[in-house]
């Protein structure tokens, strides 16, 4: 056969590499999705057993405030009201996001607009280092510094939502900051130039132009930080006091979904009701992170439409 014809008809090396490469990368993504599905199935199958196998009412689970899985109430159903934990989780998450946002956004503006050189050389590595400190260490610093501090100022035991908020604030700060930096950097340079050319001061430019156009990105960063805070276990567990009670104020011992889950899991038997309700809590966590995700996506899409 004609060598030219042959080389034209045969698959080129490039196309072979291309197919192989695509296949390999596709396998990788499939693997990850399979892992997620497996974990989801695993958590759901145990978490749902509380409702199907042990006949707990879903509404009771979500709205009652007495958590005592090994005790039965008047109707012979176990007392598994998860409301205190749900409230606790939301409170620490929202409060820590509220505290962290001004710091994170301020730091991000500093890094991108005010002093990029110093910001990138000092502030950025600093925030990235915060990520590397393990949650165990955060927990112990919380226990030995934050809790006595809170006790000294507000009285009580010091354990509670407030201490949890402080610890989570430091933990989510780097995530929110670095994502806010990304959002601010994505604002096109000519926006700033146009604003400055119109005679606006730097602050006016930041406040009226840069921040406005980066809002969706910053919101995404905050929601992402909240998702982190919601799922954090070890550090929060050490400082929140772990009492399955509705929080009366910010300094009374409370609990979160993760703290109850982490504490109870080693002390219960697989397959028993006490264990199953813990998995129901885990399922609730998973669903919440799903909600946070949809929220991020929604915000992102709204932001994208504006452009």
């Amino acid at each position, binding site marked *: 056969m004609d060598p030219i014809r042959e080389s034209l008809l045969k698959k080129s090396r490039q196309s072979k590499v291309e197919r192989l490469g695509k296949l390999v990368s596709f396998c990788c993504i499939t693997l990850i999705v399979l892992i997620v599905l497996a974990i989801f199935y695993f958590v759901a199958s145990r978490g749902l057993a509380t409702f199907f196998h042990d006949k707990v009412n879903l509404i009771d689970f979500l709205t009652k405030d007495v*958590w*005592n*899985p*090994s*005790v039965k109430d008047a109707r012979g159903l176990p007392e598994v009201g998860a409301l205190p934990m749900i409230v606790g989780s939301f409170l620490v998450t929202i409060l820590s996001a509220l505290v962290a946002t001004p710091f994170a956004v301020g730091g991000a503006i500093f890094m991108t607009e005010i002093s990029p050189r110093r910001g990138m050389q000092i502030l950025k590595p600093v925030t990235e280092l915060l990520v590397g400190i393990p949650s165990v260490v955060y927990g112990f610093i919380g*226990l030995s510094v934050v*809790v*006595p501090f809170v*006790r000294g100022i507000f009285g009580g*035991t*010091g*354990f509670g939502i407030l201490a949890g908020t402080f610890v989570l604030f430091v933990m989510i700060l780097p995530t929110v900051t670095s994502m806010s930096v990304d959002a601010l950097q994505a604002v096109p340079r000519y926006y700033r130039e146009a604003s400055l050319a119109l005679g606006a001061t730097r602050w006016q430019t930041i406040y009226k132009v840069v921040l406005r156009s980066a809002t969706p990105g910053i919101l995404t960063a905050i929601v992402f930080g909240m998702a982190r805070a919601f799922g954090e276990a070890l550090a929060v*567990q*050490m400082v929140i*006091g*772990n*009492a*399955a*009670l509705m929080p009366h104020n910010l300094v009374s*011992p409370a*609990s979160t979904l993760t703290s109850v889950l*982490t*504490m*109870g*899991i*080693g*002390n*219960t*038997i*697989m*397959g*028993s*009701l*006490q*264990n199953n309700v813990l998995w129901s809590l885990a399922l609730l966590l998973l669903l919440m992170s799903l909600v946070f995700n949809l929220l991020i996506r929604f915000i992102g899409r709204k932001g994208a439409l504006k452009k």
Partner: protein
Amino acid sequence: MKKKILTAAALLISLVGLTACQKQSSGESITAVGSSALQPLVEAAGEQYSNDHLGKFINVQGGGSGTGLSQIQAGAVDIGNSDVHAEEQNGVDAKKLVDHRVAVVGITPVVNKKVGVTNLSFAQLKAIFTGQVTNWQQLGGADLPIVLVNRAAGSGTRVTFEKWVLQGSQAKQAQEQDSTGMVRQIVAATPGAISYLAFSYVDKSIAAVKINHVAPTDENVLTNKWKIWSYEHMYTKGKPTGLTKDFIAYVLSPKIQEKVLPRLGYISISQMKVERDVSGHVTRRS
């Protein structure tokens, strides 16, 4: 660069595969999982055992009594450590498990040093933990609100303590901590705090409390004068065989019971003058 990473990964995977096949060819090992209160003892015994018997290893993991009992029941491990009786845990079929009692642990109420109370009666303790008494002044101590610190529900220490102190009443919902170290730290740091600990964890930072003027000492546990104590169990599924059997025998041997246990703060099972069954019935040991 990617190629290098891929090659490394491929190498690693094949290495792992090979290792998995040859798993037991060089040395023998068993795994003991469960109670974190029993973990130090089994670990220390395991270390000595490995030193005495080359090539035999005891893997000891914590995870809690619940994990120990679930896993031994599922047959996933060789020994399940627990500080509660299998009968006391929901969801365990105790008949399938064989109980090996290897040590005794005494549990004492502990309070913050500022409380100023050194002796309590069982009734007073019950009133404290059920929430009927809320200030130390009512018990002759300082004017401090009582801060309850509980262990996690289902933990061996809490089960034992509540069994003897509350006797069926429901404890007041309060702070919970899932480890002895945390409890000690919190009681030491929080004015008015009360909790309970195994004897070996009591140190100068906190104050142990006498009950009905009986001091929390090993001697009083031996004769059951001090009532709040529990056995430490090593459960096996069916009768133990091979290395598991040898190891349990080793833990019960005088070498461990007399030399190692006291240093770790456990009470030797062979010195106990009484025996107690699940329902709390006490018999004298001959």
